[in-house]
């Protein structure tokens, strides 16, 4: 058993970390920090945890020593927080955008503010088991990728790595409302957000930088908020290189994901769920990845779906932790999702 603490535990990623860590057989959830809700029970905020714990939120100042500290605060704030919190645990796992990019200039271009701890960027291993499993085994600074980025990277990686596609790709991402966090504001009231198809990033989205960094492609990404609480789906288009056909594409996906515990290739000719859809993944750590080839046009459509709070965040963090600790990778992440839902 190791002792873990979560910062930002009142948020949506934080709450998902609490759920997963409370159910993890090797982890004792020792602390959850909230600046607003210190002293309040965590199950008052996250009613799904009723009966599982009597823990209350604590203030940052009350943090002690832990084996692992997971940070689920916003970007910008995190690069300020992390240096002063680093002493509280040997292993730090950050879920914000602050330590995902290796180049501070790219960070500034995409986040619109200079990085205040650029010297730390090099310390971080991506919390992306499919890309960095070996590095994660010894990692004590882990930066989990963004939710839409994870989906797009897992969709594009096999094609890019095997040089089956040209570098220009487009990514059409769709996301549920939990993707923008728990804070109330005029844009996310139920009445306004309900049934939305809100193209909130029509001319470029931050996650482009992560996709480019991980896949070596040149992505153009849009993102649309659709009617869902959880769930991300990406449709990625690319041009196939000369001579690449569906067989080559399918083989690439198989090779890359045959042994992955949490990536499934879903590209069926029959049935209702032929390509990845997030709804059957709610609560699960799977990322489903599929494709469709249009040979005459030399085009491939790569599709991926995941639960933004799990494989797109907290689940990827726990999977990374499992690797880091040498535990079975699926530990605490067994929930497969529901049908119907």
């Amino acid at each position: 058993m190791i002792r873990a603490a979560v910062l930002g535990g009142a948020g949506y990623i934080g709450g998902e970390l609490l759920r997963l860590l409370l159910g993890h057989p090797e982890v004792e959830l020792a602390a959850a920090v909230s600046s607003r809700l210190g002293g309040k029970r965590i199950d008052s905020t996250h009613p799904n945890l009723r009966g599982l714990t009597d823990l209350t939120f604590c203030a940052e100042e009350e943090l002690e020593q832990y084996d692992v500290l997971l940070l689920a605060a916003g970007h910008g704030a995190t690069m300020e927080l992390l240096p002063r919190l680093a002493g509280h645990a040997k292993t730090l796992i950050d879920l914000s955008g602050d330590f995902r990019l290796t180049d501070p200039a790219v960070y500034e271009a995409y986040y619109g503010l200079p990085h205040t701890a650029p010297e730390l960027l090099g310390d971080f291993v991506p919390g992306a088991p499919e890309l960095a499993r070996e590095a994660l085994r010894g990692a004590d600074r882990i930066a989990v990728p963004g939710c839409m980025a994870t989906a797009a990277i897992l969709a594009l990686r096999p094609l890019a790595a095997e040089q089956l596609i040209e570098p220009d790709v487009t990514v059409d991402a769709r996301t549920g409302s939990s993707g923008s966090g728990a804070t109330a504001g005029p844009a996310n009231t139920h009445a306004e957000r309900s049934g939305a198809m809100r193209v909130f990033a029509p001319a470029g989205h931050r996650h482009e930088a992560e996709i480019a960094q991980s896949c070596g492609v040149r992505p153009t990404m849009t993102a649309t908020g659709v009617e869902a609480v959880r769930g991300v789906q990406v449709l990625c288009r690319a041009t196939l290189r000369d001579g690449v056909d569906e067989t080559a594409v399918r083989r690439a996906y198989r090779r890359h994901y045959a042994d992955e515990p949490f990536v499934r290739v879903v590209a069926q000719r029959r049935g209702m769920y032929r390509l990845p859809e997030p709804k059957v993944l709610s609560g699960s750590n799977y990322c489903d990845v599929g494709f469709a080839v249009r040979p005459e046009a030399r085009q491939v459509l790569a599709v991926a779906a995941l639960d933004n709070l799990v494989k797109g965040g907290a689940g990827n963090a726990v999977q990374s932790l499992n690797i880091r600790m040498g535990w079975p990778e699926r530990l605490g992440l067994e929930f497969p999702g529901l049908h119907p839902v």
Partner: protein
Amino acid sequence: MIAACPECERKLDLPDSTRLSEVVECPDCRSELEVVSIEPPLLVIAPEAEEDWGE
């Protein structure tokens, strides 16, 4: 008994009880495959009623 899906190349492990003309489903592309030979095991895509899917 191992046979390959003619649609997607997935290797299917057919049980020994597999009979001629039996229809099996490819675990990857979910094509319906008809067993047209046992030795060697051989699969072809089964003729199917066009499935309507979508809007």
